[in-house]
């Protein structure tokens, strides 16, 4: 097991290196320069400023410099926020995004699983239909539509919760609900399908025949099996939610990282683009590792296979 983890960690480093390299060169294809007043400066004047950022060097030299700094943990200095360190900016912005992402995942998964289980247990019943309806609705309506509606009805019309801004816990409720809609729908759908499949398999029928009650079977045998595919989907989804979503952050004026990432690309803020990409990539790779390890915990058959 330890050897397996070490092996995976080495792969992680290689993957990160490849992603950093690829992003770096792709980024150089972006049109324009990081200068915000490029339309006003002569070429000579632009060159003077670019010199300061080391952007007049040939691209391979820039790449080498960047990677050398990266290995030392230095992500560089932002171009659009003069002199501010990329690490500082990311640390400031990741907090709200993480909070919303974790809350949304937590709530979304729990509600989704409950809905899915209900559907499976009362298969083809009224509860099944209504929770499936909710799931389909949740998946097909974009989150920003929910966000806009929640903001308008609950924030403006009813005045129950703050319309937007980021000044305390209650400010996170509406964005969390908006973000949670999608995981709810996904979790419910997967849970339902998987449960129905598992519940139809031989060992469940055997268990039932032996007299284990319905709920016992569902939770002890069915649920655990159905979790495997669910975790596979939810892992990457969690990363997506935690690293911020432009639309929700904009609608609720949340100072998160999602908006920062998009803006950095528009403004050719190379260090921020690199920093954010690497952060997201790292979270993804990390989550995938965690998922792989979780498989073993949930399903002993997988653990055995890895052991050999």
């Amino acid at each position, binding site marked *: 097991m330890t050897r397996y983890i070490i092996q995976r960690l080495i792969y992680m480093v290689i993957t990160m290196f490849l992603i950093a390299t690829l992003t770096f060169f792709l980024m150089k294809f972006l049109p324009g320069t990081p200068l915000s007043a490029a339309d006003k400066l002569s070429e000579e004047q632009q060159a003077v400023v670019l010199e300061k950022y080391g952007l007049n060097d040939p691209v391979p030299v820039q790449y080498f410099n960047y990677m050398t700094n990266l290995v030392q943990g230095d992500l560089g200095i932002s171009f659009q926020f003069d002199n501010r360190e990329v690490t500082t900016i990311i640390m400031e912005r990741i907090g709200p995004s993480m909070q919303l992402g974790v809350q949304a995942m937590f709530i979304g998964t729990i509600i989704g699983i409950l809905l899915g289980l209900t559907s499976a247990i009362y298969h083809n019943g009224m509860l099944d239909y209504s929770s499936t309806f909710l799931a389909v609705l949740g998946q097909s309506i974009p989150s920003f539509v929910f966000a806009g509606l929640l903001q308008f009805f609950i924030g403006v019309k009813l005045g129950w919760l703050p319309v937007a*801004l980021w000044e305390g816990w209650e400010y996170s409720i509406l964005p969390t609900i908006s973000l949670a809609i999608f995981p709810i729908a996904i979790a419910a759908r997967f849970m339902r399908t998987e449960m129905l499949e598992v519940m139809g398999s031989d060992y469940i029928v055997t268990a039932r025949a032996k007299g284990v009650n319905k709920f016992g079977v569902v939770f002890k045998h069915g649920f655990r099996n159905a979790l495997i595919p669910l975790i596979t989907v939810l892992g990457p989804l969690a990363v997506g939610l935690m690293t911020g979503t432009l639309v929700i952050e904009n609608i609720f004026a949340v*100072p998160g990282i999602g908006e920062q990432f998009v803006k950095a690309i528009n403004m050719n803020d190379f260090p921020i683009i690199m920093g954010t990409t690497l952060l997201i990539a790292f979270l993804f790779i990390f989550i995938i590792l965690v998922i792989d390890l979780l498989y073993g915990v949930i399903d002993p058959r997988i653990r055995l296979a890895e052991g050999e």
Partner: protein
Amino acid sequence: MKKTNWLLLVLALVLSMFLAACSGGSDDTSNSTDDAETEDTSSEDDAAAGDSEQVLNITDSAEIPTMDASLATDAVAFQWLGSTTDGLYRLGENAQPEPGIAKDHEVSEDGLTWTFNLREDAVWSNGDPVTANDFVFAWQRAVNPDTGSEYGPYMMGGIIKNAQAIVDGEVPVEELGVKAEDDHTLVVELEKPVPYFESLTTFGTFLPMNQAFVEEHGDQYALEADTLLSNGPFVLTEWNHGEGWTLEKNEDYWDAENVKLEKINVKVVKETSTAVNLYDTGEIDRAGLSAEFVDQYRTSDDFVIDEEPTLFYLKMNQENEVLANVNARKAIQMVIDRQAMVDVILNNGSIPSAGHIPQNFTKHPETEEDFRELNGDLIETNVEKAQELWAKAKEELGQDEIELGYLGGDTEVALNMDAYIKDQLEQLEGLTVKVQSVPFKERLARDEAMDYDIQNSGWGPDYIDPNTFLNMFVTDGGNNKTGYSSEEYDGLIEKANTELAQKPVERFETFLEAEKMLIQEDAVLAPLYQRAKARLWKPYVKGVIAQPMGPDFTYKYAYIEGK
């Protein structure tokens, strides 16, 4: 539609019940609900107390990129620099410079030496007096290539003596034409007479800096509220990056008695609809409106249109054989219905423009008449006449079917507008327009390379003088990029900036003549519109002055009344 809304509302409620039920399982539910309630009440208390308080709550569309005056390049940075720092002069009512750190100034007869007398009672927020050296230091820093300033070279190059040479690395930075004669006398030497230099000193790049403080903080200078100094009406007391910031009245400001506002709370809100919702719930006192909201709020008492001196126009590349023909260019000028464009597509109060100087931007030095009014509409919309000119151009060119590329932006408004303009242009018989929609930076790159036929372009002023618009189109001007080159035009601009530099009336009249030549005779550009911004302002906010350049607003004299 209504039914779906209801369904969604019901769904939302069901979900929030789920949510409540869900957190009900955890131990701290009762606590967190209580917290929420207490906080709610306290914020209501704040609002109630706010009745008598001089607090302005507004939003900005982006985080402040920098509070370092040398590095600032955008509206947000200039806004808050301008609110916390006084330069030699600051823009007041009607965009007229009024005394800031300078009490007054004298200009030498040749117009090259400006001597500013600084007030002695101005202090920085750490108690240091504001001295002439603070200007010398800041201006040298702005042109020093090590600083990496964009606006330093742009604003000072060719204006302040030796600035360009310093940028080019030819002379040391100490040679910059700005000297502190004593603590309260600043002497500035210019490369050439600059009649608008007084208004230029209000611009962010010319703001002073406290040398000891800047050097003490080094790389950290101006990154946080506590590594910043203020000598202006307000002090930045809190700065939560990405979320918002707070300014409080500077009690040590030399003109503190005229500052009524105690506090300005600014939140970063990017979505127009979010800002409008916050405005409707009374959280903020101002909201910008996009076209889709204008109709909804047009009749509201809070609805205000702020005209901006920013112009949009079509640039026509004269390296293109067709566009080298003046009749073809005139036909393009005349065929576009600009009124319909601003009414239907922009719908935000923007006005059709018919020249290359915005309205309400500069006035005749003697008669006080507006530049735009004096020169009037230099082009008209007349499809018939356009067709005639176009037919003539085709004959001269010996072509019947003509295809032109059109370079435009990729935003939603730009796409709509470009589709409209394409449609208008194609009224010209035998003309096919191929629209290319590219991101802003790509458009700039293609402009630089003159890789376009027709381009939708815009320009905002850098100082309040016709020169900022008209100087662009001199032969090989850095922002010309149309291939237009006219000795006569160059001569007019040159004359205005040299021999007439000290004669405001003749100078102004020369600019009138130059604009006529640029638009009417030589048809270098096809003017489109002058931008305006529709906003909602709470009626209890008084005394905010909208500015044509630099900071968008002056809050120095703002106050709250009758909230």
